[in-house]
């Protein structure tokens, strides 16, 4: 090959690079090993993290994943393809995304969806940017003052953080309304009038604390006041709960969340994918890819990326977002998951999670010194008060081989004695009893 090139050595191919730049500072990197050794090393580490039953949710859930999902999603044809820019050579990915768009809009009862953003946290960030673009009528667009986004009730603190960090440099400010009994303080929200009227309001349902928010009231207030509604939802819950498209009289304007519960392993929280849906009227404000159905030269149906003029590779500085690489493979898995479980399977999963969590709460609150912290209905997460600093309790329970919920003191100092617990359909009676016993042992010796 060098002969064809007419170069004396590979080194010569780097002859346009200033010699001083060629470094030998790679000593910090070890020599390579063969696959066997690498796997052995990684397995040794992975083994250290093997844990017993998981009762932590908080945005990432230990659901059963049908074996077929990843057997198919991990096929080289899906896994090692690039973004489907050459539509004719990418009908597999393209049609799948079209099917995904149909499924996720079916779940959320929204009109349109993009092909994914990174995760639930960044999806909320994109939703906020989108709302600001979309709500052109809002006074803040004229005054040039900060664009306020109300956060109604208990939204996932990591989502709020990520959104703040993503939107901060565009003069956007997130304003929490505060909570009463773990749910939105409706008076505080509806008191945001005049100058304080937000561009949009974020509502998470079920909220971060597992509780059901009064989404109809919020949505109706918002739509009466020219405020856009951004819904943050858990897709599993949508098999049971009223979807954002049906909140209040007019539905939410934007629905987003994390697709992890749909066939994606917890895997330390990533990769999963963020979904982002909206009304037809706002489709041109959606960031990210969209797939449309069209026809080919012979009038046969086919699929292609469409409305690409919203995206960075065409619109550059004027794009709706800088997103390019998204979370395609996870969307592939989620689509296969939804096809396999169907509406019946998903609603069984949801009702089973709900039932398991009620059983869990019953068992845990049966332990001396433990009680439910908030009253009212919950889906598959709940806050329990363990009567002493919950972070230490969680560590002690972990010693006994149980991932026993999220200590909340880090986010809400007044909940420092509380754990946010969750039971999915995978948690057996024996798992729940084991957690109960562990908690008993930790709290009461």
């Amino acid at each position, binding site marked *: 090959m060098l002969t064809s090139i007419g170069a004396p050595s590979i080194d010569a191919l780097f002859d346009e690079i200033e010699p001083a730049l060629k470094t030998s500072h790679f000593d910090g990197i070890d020599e390579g090993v063969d696959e066997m050794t690498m796997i052995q090393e990684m397995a040794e580490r992975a083994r250290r993290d093997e844990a017993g039953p998981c009762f932590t949710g908080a945005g990432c859930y230990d659901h059963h994943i049908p074996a077929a999902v990843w057997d198919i999603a991990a096929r080289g044809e899906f896994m090692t393809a690039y973004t489907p820019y050459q539509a004719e050579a990418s009908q597999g990915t393209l049609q799948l995304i079209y099917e995904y768009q149909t499924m996720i809009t079916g779940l959320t009862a929204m009109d349109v969806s993009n092909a994914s953003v*990174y995760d639930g946290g960044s999806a909320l960030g994109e939703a906020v940017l989108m709302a600001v673009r979309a709500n052109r009528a809002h006074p803040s667009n004229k005054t040039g003052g900060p664009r306020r986004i109300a956060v109604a009730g208990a939204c996932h603190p990591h989502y709020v953080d990520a959104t703040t960090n993503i939107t901060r440099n565009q003069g956007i400010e997130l304003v929490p309304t505060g909570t009463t009994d773990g749910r939105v303080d409706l008076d505080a929200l509806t008191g945001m009038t005049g100058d304080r009227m937000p561009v949009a309001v974020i509502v998470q349902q079920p909220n971060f604390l597992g509780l059901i928010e009064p989404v109809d009231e919020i949505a109706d207030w918002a739509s009466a006041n020219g405020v856009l509604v951004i819904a943050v939802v858990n897709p599993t819950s949508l098999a049971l709960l009223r979807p954002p498209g049906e909140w209040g009289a007019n539905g939410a304007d934007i629905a987003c969340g994390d697709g992890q519960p749909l066939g994606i392993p917890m895997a330390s929280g990533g990769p999963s994918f963020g979904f982002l849906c909206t009304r037809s009227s706002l489709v041109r404000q959606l960031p990210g890819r969209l797939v449309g159905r069209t026809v080919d030269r012979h009038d046969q149906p086919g699929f292609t990326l469409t409305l690409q003029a919203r995206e960075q590779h065409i619109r550059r500085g004027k794009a709706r977002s800088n997103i390019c690489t998204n979370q395609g493979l996870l969307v592939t898995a989620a689509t296969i998951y939804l096809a396999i479980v169907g509406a019946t399977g998903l609603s069984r999963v949801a009702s089973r999670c709900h039932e398991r969590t009620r059983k869990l709460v019953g068992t845990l609150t049966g332990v001396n010194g433990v009680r439910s912290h908030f009253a009212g209905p919950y889906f598959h997460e709940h806050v329990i008060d363990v009567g002493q600093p919950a972070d230490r309790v969680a560590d002690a329970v972990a010693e006994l081989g149980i991932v026993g919920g999220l200590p909340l003191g880090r986010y809400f100092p007044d909940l420092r004695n509380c754990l946010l617990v969750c039971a999915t359909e995978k948690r057996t009676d024996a798992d729940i009893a084991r957690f109960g016993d562990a908690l008993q042992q930790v709290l009461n010796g």
Partner: protein
Amino acid sequence: MNPGETIFDIGKPGRRASAQAPAAGDAPDLPASCLRANAPRLPEVSELQAVRHYTNLSARNFSIDNQFYPLGSCTMKYNPRGAHRAASLPGFLNRHPLAPESASQGFLACLYDLQETLKHVTGMAAVSLTPMAGAQGEFAGVAMIRAWHDARGDDGREEILVPTAAHGTNPATAVMCGYRVREVAVGADGDMDMAALKAALGEKTAGIMLTNPSTCGVFERRIREIADAVHAAGGLLYYDGANLNAILGNVRPGDMGFDVAHLNLHKTFATPHGGGGPGAGPVGVGERLVPHIPTPVVARDGDRYRWVDNDQIPGSIGRLSAFMGNAGILLRALAYARMLGREGMRRVGEYATLNANYLMVRLADAGFELAYPERRASHEFIITFRNEAKTLGVTAMDFAKRLLDYGFHAPTTYFPLLVAECFLIEPTETETKEELDAFVDAMVRIRAEAETDPERVKTAPHTLPVSRLDDVKAARELDLTYSFGEH
């Protein structure tokens, strides 16, 4: 499967994969008002139907596992299955992101090792792994530049410079960070126009976003001069690491004078592209930006690893995702890096460069026009069909589509925007000479077709599941979801 037949077309009310539904729970203990009235419209198929449908759909993709995929700027190289296996170990797959540190030492050790490895790879002082793709790495980088200026009270800097050849994410990122974009011209030799740069620099300059080798497929030779000029103007330099594969193990952004760099692990570190993602875009920073790196990162105390969060890095631009970015991709990258090691990384850069230069010379010898004929290729290079387009009416897009018929994925077309009718061709180091030769043969044959039977090329592809698609109709008559009952 029939063309365009979706999973909804093959469903039937009530049909389902019975083994995939747990026993129903009791009636939910939830107020009726918050319950869903109608079940969502999801597919109603058997497990076999789902498996068959998606198996057959997958066959309608080109992919690295099936084809040569010389997509410039995308580094479509082989993704070792071993890395996928390592990341799929049960201990990693089942780890909850908020599991206690005591039950996460294996995972944390991996992240720590990857941070250290990438510090060496980039020549930077610190690395944060959280960005979830290149674009988020860019965002983190520019946000840190902004945080740095802000921290010093230097708040009049409103502009980010971007060369005209830059990837679209660069200007889009600058805007997301609240900056104005100022474009800087690229010279005829593919290097930056130094006069234009100097004219653009000034007290409004917050920084510049560059990739080197650039998207012109050449190494920016005056990079240190550029760095000095930008620094002298008070700006910082951001390195877009999407092209790092070209110089991996040989040259480091930190040594070129960059203050911050992102890496596309899904390119250089061989995690698969997944039909669009996921990726990971870790950022490495020089000393100045260390106080601003995004969280969380991992620290080590003796043989214990721990999370470091905003409380310990008060100047951090904060978290950009709900958890730890695309954690699984980070594990894949570590596995890949571990197999390569020091010498392997050097070979990556060398062979990527060798393959690109070989392919470039062979195509030039076969009569294709190079955009930068005087230059070495980096890991990629540009050819232009402006002559073919003019004389034969056959465009770069036509060549691209016809290549599909020959079993090759098309190179990147019409990017960078500044070269007309171009292909950006990146063969990567994992392809063989035989594959490159076969690609040249196909290109030569297509040009012969373009001369003798241009229609054949202009109406390509002819052998794929669909022929050329009507993009205009797709955008005009938006059909983004299946219409139940209408098909």
